[in-house]
């Protein structure tokens, strides 16, 4: 369905120095799957989706959607796709219904189909109560739903959503998730980006993990987790430990039979993430610590998560990556790029 080959894109950053957003990125999305793109903020997710939606031209590389070259035939590709952007752009003066009518005219829907589609979408996204109120009065959840409806008006084969549930209340998020699953079951290919692990884990059939403008892992969530193997144990000897103590404990735990690796997680109060061989290891670790008179504040065992996949590939957790870029982003420059 979608083939992105060797995409590169850079933007002018501070002092006109080019900042690379995508770095030789390649991605294949099969037809009819719900495809998740997971990555911290600033990893190139939005740039990639904007290129896919023909809003942005890559510096190099190719984009093909259903066999159509998106760079030379953007209009054909636009007919096939619905795009729900990260920043919800709606006209505050129009009512929800007027916005949908406006959008359906941009997609050249004939009058009778337009009325039918709009009323279907109002039911589907449960918008009946407020669809005739002005968009300016909508909450974040309502805005996101009207935006999703606008992206679905022309029954696209491909739906692209950029961080569709950021800042949503739980109910709106549940509605969005449910609708996305139903669409996927009907054969619509869906590509969505998120920096929420749980969202990608729960929703996507396949996913790619982005880091610094490249794909660092691709597959189904269970494949990726299985590839890592083993069980995870998170250990804290006190609520907030320090680097010195954790380093000492790390050495000690590495000597414990059945412990394959130990990573110190600085962002979680220097807790220790143990990669272990078998499920009965918790007791062994607990005994090992009590022999040394070391208290245990908490000890939890879990299957590997997508965060572990990210940790394994990049050496840091998603949260760390988020924090690392939090101060570096330039919202003004990013807004300019999207204009």
């Amino acid at each position, binding site marked *: 369905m979608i083939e992105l080959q060797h995409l590169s894109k850079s933007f002018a950053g501070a002092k006109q120095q080019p900042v690379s957003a995508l770095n030789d990125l390649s991605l294949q999305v099969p037809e009819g799957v719900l495809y998740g793109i997971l990555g911290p903020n600033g990893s190139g997710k939005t740039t990639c989706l904007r290129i896919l*939606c*023909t*809003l942005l031209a890559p510096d190099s590389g190719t984009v093909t959607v*259903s066999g159509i070259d998106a760079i030379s035939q953007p*209009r*054909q590709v*636009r*007919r*096939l*796709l619905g*795009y729900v*952007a990260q*920043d919800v*752009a*709606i*006209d505050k*003066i*129009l009512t929800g219904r*007027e916005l949908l*009518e*406006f*959008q359906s*005219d*941009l*997609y*050249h829907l*004939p009058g009778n*189909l337009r009325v039918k*589609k709009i009323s*279907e979408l109002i*039911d*589907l*996204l*449960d918008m009946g*109560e407020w669809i005739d109120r002005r968009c300016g009065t909508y909450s974040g959840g309502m805005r996101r739903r009207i935006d999703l409806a*606008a992206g*679905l008006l*022309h*029954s*696209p*084969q491909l739906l692209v959503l950029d961080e569709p549930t950021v800042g949503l209340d739980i*109910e709106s998020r*549940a*509605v969005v998730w*449910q*609708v996305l699953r*139903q*669409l996927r*079951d*009907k*054969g*619509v290919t869906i590509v969505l980006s998120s920096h929420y692990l749980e969202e990608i884990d729960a929703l996507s059939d396949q996913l790619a993990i982005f880091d610094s403008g490249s794909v660092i892992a691709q597959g189904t969530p269970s494949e990726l987790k299985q590839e890592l193997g083993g069980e995870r144990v998170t250990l804290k000897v006190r609520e907030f430990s320090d680097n010195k103590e954790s380093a000492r404990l790390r050495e000690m735990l590495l000597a414990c039979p059945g412990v394959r690796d130990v990573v110190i997680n600085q962002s979680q109060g220097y807790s220790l993430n143990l990669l272990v061989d078998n499920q009965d290891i918790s007791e062994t670790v607990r005994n090992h610590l009590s022999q040394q008179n070391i208290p245990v504040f908490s000890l939890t065992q879990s299957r590997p998560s997508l965060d572990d996949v990210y940790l394994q590939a990049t050496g840091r957790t998603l949260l760390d990556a988020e924090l690392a870029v939090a101060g570096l982003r330039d919202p003004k420059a990013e*807004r*300019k790029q*999207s*204009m």
Partner: protein
Amino acid sequence: MTITSASVQSESFGTGGQRPLPKVSAASEIFQETFALTRRLFLQLIRCPSTLLAGVLQPLIWLILFGALFANAPEGLLPGGGSYGRFLGAGVIVFTAFSAALNAGLPIMFDREFGFLNRLLVAPLRSRASIVLASVIYITLLSLIQSVAIIIVAGFLGYGWPSVSGILIVFLVLSLLIFAVTALSLSLAFSLPGHIELIAVIFVSNLPLLFTSTALAPLSFMPTWLSWLASINPLTFAIEPIRASYSNDFRFTDTVLNAPYGSLNSFSCIAVLASIALFLFIAIRPLLDRRLN
């Protein structure tokens, strides 16, 4: 608010790509998208009528207050005689249309800033020129409405009425001016970084262009340097034919402007305006193509 129990049952979902697209002509698609875009601009205007209100009030204030400033000026001071209010009318009409057209880029700039433009750009518009076309239609209609309001008020103030053919000339001249200035404003909207810069440009260019035209005073009142500026100011080429169209025996070939470089009649003024409009639309094409394709 409950989670919807409705499910995606319609045949049109999910099989979208297999649904054959109805065969529609390019013209009807362009009409549909342009109509929707223009309708949106008018809905905005009707629901936030302050723009329209200010747009009509401001020129009326000019006409009433500025006109009154010279109410007792000696008879025959102005070339061709007549009151100052009558002289000023044409200037105010042109200045109103000019200001409105200069603001044409603002809605587009706000759409860029709020990300609404992306909604238009990701849609399979038959031609993205529809976005520009909608702005031109909107501004032209809006300024013509404002101009009619001024013509009517000026008439009641005793500043005279144009003939029927005069009104047609007013509309022709204003349309040309609006096209030219709208083209300029749209190109600014696509090239400047934000609305603050756009408003600054509008603010800075508005009054100087008014003062260096023949809107408020005839060329014969001006020092040579200013009369040179006024004789190359596009506003002057719009003002003079409109001023002439208020006279009962209007002829295209009558001299309306004794510029330092030679005399111009209404026909040549209109021809200059048309050339400027055409030139600007051709000149901004590459910019619009780059921004919109």
